């Protein structure tokens, strides 16, 4: 005897379970690498237990065990993170709960719950990474999860894997246009696509408000993108691509810093010469500095920024998310022509008891006379004429770092030159400070944007010269002029040209460079068009297509979706609808059957003409004779020969007419 179906659990085919486990692993794999090791191990162990329990047909664990495990999971997450909410603990909880769900996976319903949990878990990946590969990975995951969902809903037996995947893929493909439409038109919350909670992400590399010997050199080996720039109109020559960042003025003998100053009114700034307007997309730096070409125009500052008294472009709060801003700069300028005594004192301060030789040298220049310009030139001449080398791997420096650099090692990176130059200037009585930032910008050959990487980090000096104001002096340029002309990455690979000659276009370095450019271009598009698609871009887009306000936009959204669905529905119905009859006999027959239908005698689908006539004769004996005659005439006309004879058609027409009467 078979058991009645109702009493059985809607059991799951084993094959579906293996698939579900596989897809689960796929979905949580990136998280497993981020979670505490005990949790990853526990989740994997649960999966293994599930496999063995299914194979050996072990009974389901007792409810008390399950409850105990759940409490343990909470305790474990709390112990690891110190709380059970927030980004990391939340994801950790979700993953472990998903693992625990395996202990009560019995019927189809449980699988459906698990699948929806998986969909939700997919979203959490965006909290950790919003790069392009994440998108593709998650798209593949979504298709796999949808395939499992389709498989689950298939009564009786698992679907073939390829069919299930095809169904999943087709469903996702069909939903893509709607997704795009919603993405473009749905009202957006101000802010980036994915707002990261405060505990997200570790410290980023980049420039900071202090600079010790070796800091910038460390950055030089980083290939990370600092920001991307798109110029509107003129593009500045390479020698003018100084991106101003933190300005450091306090020196403790070893490192430079920018201690907070009492707020002062912005010193006067006269800008001259050609101006550049550009849009910058800054990667999160976790500092408030924005980068602008020397010198940013105070009258055209981006929103929520200010210009500091040292002409730094500062955001109101640290940049924790990718930020896009438009700024305007003019490289020719007269900055702060007058310096107050207090300022002058501040910018001449040197720590006592350090770098005695350098100070003595500078003082000798001052006594030689000849004015401020002459002192600057003497210092630059020293860097140029004596055996100074520019290197990424300078020797370590001791207590009197400037003395050791100037008189012993003479090998250094931009920060050594900038730092010792400023010390010399101050010792010679010229107010000076160190400016850090980036130098250069590499054009992406595939897009119209320029990339500035962490390896472009640079430090230079500013000297206040009476009558001219602040003047930018880059001592590194006198030692290694090439540093200004081309980016550091290119400088490092000096053998490139030679290789190109040998291997032509197949050169490995060139290929790598091109691949990097392509990736950078794609990444820039992704950042700009998708991740950066916030309220502003949306408003721009909607304005451009004439849907500037919310009401129009919502109307358009509703209208478009409705119209699309109507169109799809219409097309499907059109496909289903039988073609209009071209056959004369069929047309006459339809005419007659329509008439009979109006009298409550419809011809059934799949009912032959003779059977139909017989049925009508049974149900409505009064119509028997004309309907039988009609069916006979129709069969004669339609099925007797390839083309109905005119005689047969006439007969049919008569029969149809007879029915009307």
């Amino acid at each position, binding site marked *: 005897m078979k058991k009645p179906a109702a009493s059985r659990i809607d059991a799951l085919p084993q094959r579906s379970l293996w698939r579900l486990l596989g897809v689960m692993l796929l979905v949580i794999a990136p998280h497993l690498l981020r979670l505490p090791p005990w949790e990853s191990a526990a989740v994997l162990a649960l999966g293994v237990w599930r496999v063995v329990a299914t194979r050996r047909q072990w009974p389901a664990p007792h409810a008390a065990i399950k409850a105990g495990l759940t409490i343990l999971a909470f305790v474990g997450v709390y112990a690891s993170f110190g709380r059970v909410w927030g980004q990391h603990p939340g994801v950790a909880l979700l993953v472990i709960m998903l693992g625990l769900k395996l202990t009560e996976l019995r019927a189809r319903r449980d699988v459906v719950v698990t699948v929806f949990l998986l969909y939700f878990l997919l979203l959490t990946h965006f909290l950790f990474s919003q790069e392009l590969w994440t998108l593709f990975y998650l798209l593949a995951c979504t298709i796999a999860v949808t395939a499992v969902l389709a498989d689950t809903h298939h009564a009786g037996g698992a679907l073939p894997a390829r069919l299930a995947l095809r169904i999943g893929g087709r469903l996702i493909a069909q939903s893509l246009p709607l997704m795009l439409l919603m993405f473009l038109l749905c009202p957006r919350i101000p802010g980036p696509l994915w707002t990261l909670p405060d505990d997200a992400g570790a410290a980023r590399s980049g420039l900071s408000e202090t600079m010790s010997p070796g800091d910038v050199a460390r950055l030089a080996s980083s290939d990370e993108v600092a920001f991307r720039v798109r110029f509107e109109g003129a593009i500045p020559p390479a020698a003018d691509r100084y991106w101003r960042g933190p300005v450091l003025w306090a020196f403790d003998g070893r490192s430079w810093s920018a201690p907070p100053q009492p707020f002062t009114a912005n010193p006067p700034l006269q800008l001259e010469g050609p101006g550049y307007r550009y849009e910058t997309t800054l990667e999160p730096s976790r500092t408030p500095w924005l980068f602008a070409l020397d010198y940013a125009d105070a009258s055209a500052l981006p929103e929520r920024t200010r210009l500091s008294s040292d002409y730094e472009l500062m955001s109101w709060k640290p940049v924790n998310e990718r930020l896009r801003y438009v700024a305007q700069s003019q490289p020719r300028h007269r900055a702060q022509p007058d310096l107050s005594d207090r300022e002058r004192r501040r910018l001449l301060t040197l720590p006592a008891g350090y770098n005695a030789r350098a100070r003595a040298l500078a003082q000798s220049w001052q006594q030689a006379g000849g004015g401020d310009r002459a002192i600057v030139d003497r210092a630059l001449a020293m860097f140029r004429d004596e055996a100074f080398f520019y290197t990424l791997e300078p020797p370590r420096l001791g207590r009197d770092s400037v003395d050791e650099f100037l008189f012993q090692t003479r090998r250094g990176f931009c920060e050594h030159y900038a730092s010792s130059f400023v010390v010399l200037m101050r010792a010679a009585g010229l107010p000076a400070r160190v400016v850090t930032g980036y130098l250069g910008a590499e054009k992406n050959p595939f897009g119209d944007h320029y990339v500035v990487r962490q390896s472009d980090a640079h430090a230079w000096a500013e000297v206040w010269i009476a009558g001219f104001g602040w003047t930018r002096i880059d001592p590194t340029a006198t030692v290694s002029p090439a540093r200004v002309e081309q980016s550091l990455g290119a400088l490092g690979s000096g053998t490139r040209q030679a290789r190109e000659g040998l291997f032509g276009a197949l050169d490995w370095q060139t290929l790598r460079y091109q691949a990097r450019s392509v990736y950078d271009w794609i990444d820039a598009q992704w950042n700009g068009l998708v991740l950066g698609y916030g309220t502003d871009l949306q408003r721009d887009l909607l304005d451009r297509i004439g849907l500037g306000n919310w009401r129009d936009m919502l109307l358009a959204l509703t209208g478009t979706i409705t119209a699309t669905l109507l169109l799809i529905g219409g097309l499907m119905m059109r496909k289903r609808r039988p073609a209009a009859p071209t056959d004369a006999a069929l047309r006459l027959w339809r005419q007659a059957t329509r008439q009979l239908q109006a009298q409550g005698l419809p011809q059934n689908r*799949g009912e*032959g003409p003779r059977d139909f006539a017989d049925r009508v004769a049974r149900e409505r004996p009064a119509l028997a004779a004309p309907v039988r005659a009609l069916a006979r005439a129709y069969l004669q006309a*339609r*099925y007797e*020969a390839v083309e109905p004879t005119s005689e047969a058609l006439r007969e049919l027409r008569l029969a149809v007419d007879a029915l009307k009467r």
Partner: protein
Amino acid sequence: MNPHLQDAVASLSRIVLGKDRQLRLALSCLLARGHLLVEDLPGMGKTTVALALARVLGLTHHRVQFTSDLLPADILGVSIYETASGNFRFHPGPVFTQLLLADEINRASPKTQSALLEAMAEEQVSIDGQTRALPQPFFVVATQNPSDQVGVFALPESQLDRFLMRISMGYPAAAAERALLTEPERRDLLLGLAPSLTPEALIELQREVQQVRTAPALIDYILALVHHTRAHPALQHGLSPRAALALRHAAQAWALIDGRGSVIPEDVQAVFAAVATHRLQARSAGTAPSAQDILAAVAIP
């Protein structure tokens, strides 16, 4: 209608009571030059139908009772060395006949079943490297028990496909069963039955079947049916082109028995269940649409 044909139908329904529809199907199967598979429980009159057909059509016939130890040579024949002449002489098996009644075909081993295959498809047999033609006309009428009985080898799809039709008898109606019990034995009646047709007349009728007209509209209908089965989600495979041809031939024969010179959709519908159901396989057991379901779902173009 052809008077001989009318006579044949009448004679048949005197032997097998109350099964006019099945008899007409069986007759149209043979007229369409197809082999017939009769499937039912033991004792439902399968063999009687087959014997009656042979008798009424005036065909020579042999009957082979298939058993699990039956060998191919038992059907096809065997060459035996004769000491007198010093030669091998071929002793033809029961297959050399006009109507072979293969009783309980699914009791034989697959090897023996497949020995029938060439005979059915090619109307010839190859034995000892020599091809021998079978008499004309040649029919196989096989009977089988439903395959969920004990001790049967279900026919594989390829072999099922060789049968133009599969019909099942079903229990007789009350009146027919009463007559069965009160009247003389069917076997005795069968012996007294005079043939209504000669083999030559049968071959002539087969030729007439091929001349029954099928209008484009009707071909469209057959195609619609076939395509419907191919797109049906519950079916493993749809009907093959051979099945579509079979459908046309069977419908032509049915129309001829009905006394018409052209096929109408009702003819296709009449033979559809017998021609199609044994060629269709459900994706999972018990979910296959019935022939009626398919007919009701496909609009006649």
